[in-house]
């Protein structure tokens, strides 16, 4: 066999030389007490690939029109061989993806991995997280069931609260004044064309930044002078990654098999909204907050106030590396406390929303 591969190897060598092998050899993963957190990024990437693969498969049967969307998903679930598995994987992996992205984001936040020079790694990661939320929001509507229909109504209605451009945004996202078949077609376009395009671009940047700046070592570890030799990315870290991915795949398949994703009842725009309507778990804390706000706050509407605060908070969140100028000092501590407060707020509000 080597004689067969030899010309290929030489062909490759003549063109690329050591470029890629150098990249692979150069890449090192720091080893310390917090190394475990480094696996969350790779796990999120793996789940994203699962989404791309299962999403492409679902496209073979899914039909994005109000007359056919629900039926086509039903067809996938009941008639297509392993359709239940592919759709279950897509739905479950979508949720796990947001969970791992969230954990990845908060772990980098608390370990202050956004410290210079890695500001852009943080910013691109935040943008990816928002894109994933967009995937979740747009994908939720696609089966065209009752729950998704009304959740989308509420979710897009919130856009109208944005000052000045709110109504324009609402019309653009809904494809009209109401949530109709036009909304479904648009959301389908966002979900399978626009968001993947943006995600590919931002993801490429994020991975480039990770490669270029390397992985951040927590300041405390740096100070302690802990000198464990870094682990080569290839094959040591990648093999560990693979084990994690393999387990994740098993967990996903088990979830899809033993807790199949429901399809629900077909959406009927003229039926009353069913009781207990609520968005996906990752939007629950915002949903619950808006529920608690009074109709009028200060001089603006409560809903508008909530949307403005969340918008401002998200912007500040993205800009954290530029605001926390002294991560080692007092301002750094302040950011850590703020982070803890945010986590407590999100968890508490989500639980409240979940139960009530």
């Amino acid at each position, binding site marked *: 066999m080597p004689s067969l591969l030899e010309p290929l190897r030489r062909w490759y060598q003549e063109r690329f030389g050591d470029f890629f092998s150098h990249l692979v050899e150069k890449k090192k993963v720091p080893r310390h007490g917090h190394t475990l957190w480094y696996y969350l990024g790779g796990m999120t990437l793996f789940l994203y690939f699962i989404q791309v693969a299962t999403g492409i498969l679902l496209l073979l049967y899914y039909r994005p029109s109000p007359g056919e969307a629900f039926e086509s998903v039903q067809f996938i679930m009941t008639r*297509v*061989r*392993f359709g239940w598995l*592919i759709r279950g994987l897509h739905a479950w992996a979508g949720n796990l993806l947001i969970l791992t992205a969230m954990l990845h984001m908060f772990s980098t936040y608390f370990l202050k991995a956004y410290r210079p020079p890695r500001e852009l790694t943080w910013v691109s990661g935040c943008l990816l997280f928002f894109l994933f939320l967009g995937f979740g929001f747009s994908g939720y509507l696609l089966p065209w069931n009752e729950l998704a229909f009304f959740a989308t109504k509420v979710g897009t209605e919130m856009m109208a609260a944005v000052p000045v451009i709110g109504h324009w945004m609402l019309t653009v996202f809904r494809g009209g004044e109401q949530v109709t078949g036009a909304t479904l077609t648009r959301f389908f376009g966002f979900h399978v064309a626009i968001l993947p395009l943006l995600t590919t671009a931002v993801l490429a940047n994020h991975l480039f930044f990770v490669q270029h700046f390397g992985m951040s070592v927590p300041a405390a570890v740096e100070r302690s002078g802990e000198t464990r030799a870094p682990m080569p990315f290839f094959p040591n870290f990648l093999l560990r990654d693979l084990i994690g991915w393999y387990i994740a795949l098993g967990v996903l398949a088990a979830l899809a098999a033993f807790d199949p994703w429901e399809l629900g009842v077909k959406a009927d725009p003229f039926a009353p909204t069913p009781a207990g309507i609520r968005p996906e778990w990752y939007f629950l804390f915002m949903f619950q907050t808006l529920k608690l706000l009074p109709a009028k706050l200060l001089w603006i509407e409560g809903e508008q106030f909530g949307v403005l605060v969340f918008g401002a908070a998200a912007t500040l969140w993205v800009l954290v590396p530029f605001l926390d100028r002294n991560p080692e000092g007092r301002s750094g501590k302040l950011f850590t406390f703020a982070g803890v407060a945010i986590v407590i707020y999100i968890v508490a509000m989500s639980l409240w929303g979940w139960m009530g």
Partner: protein
Amino acid sequence: MSEATPGTNERRQKPAPGRRTLLGFLLGSSLLASLASIIYPILNFILPPPTGEVDTDTVVAGRADELAPNSGKIFRFGSRPGILVRTPAGDYCAFSATCTHLECTVQYRGREHDIWCACHNGVYDLQGRNVSGPPPRPLEVYDVHVQGEDVVVARRGRS
């Protein structure tokens, strides 16, 4: 390895290759099994399930007063098109309307009294025989019965 480091404890090293082969075999076969368990559902998913289409044997192709002599019409025969022709003499005949060349849908030509495929200029006569052009086989011939108002078309030998 053992050649590069002579003088190491040979007793401890000896069983290693066997164990290593076994482990390699176990790892490799588990990976293969995993790969198969991923590819198998995907291949099955890609293949569309049978549509559950009813195998139609008989269909009402039209009303008896609908077709003038020397004309034809296309009708649905299950999921495929059929062609019903009324000859200049006033008789009915019916065929599969799928050209045997490349599956275009044929049509009746009143002036030439033949069945013609527009894609590659294939011509069939009113018995469904391929008389000129590229079609390799005759059209499938159906039985036609006029039952009261209806022209009923049936697959041969099954009606």
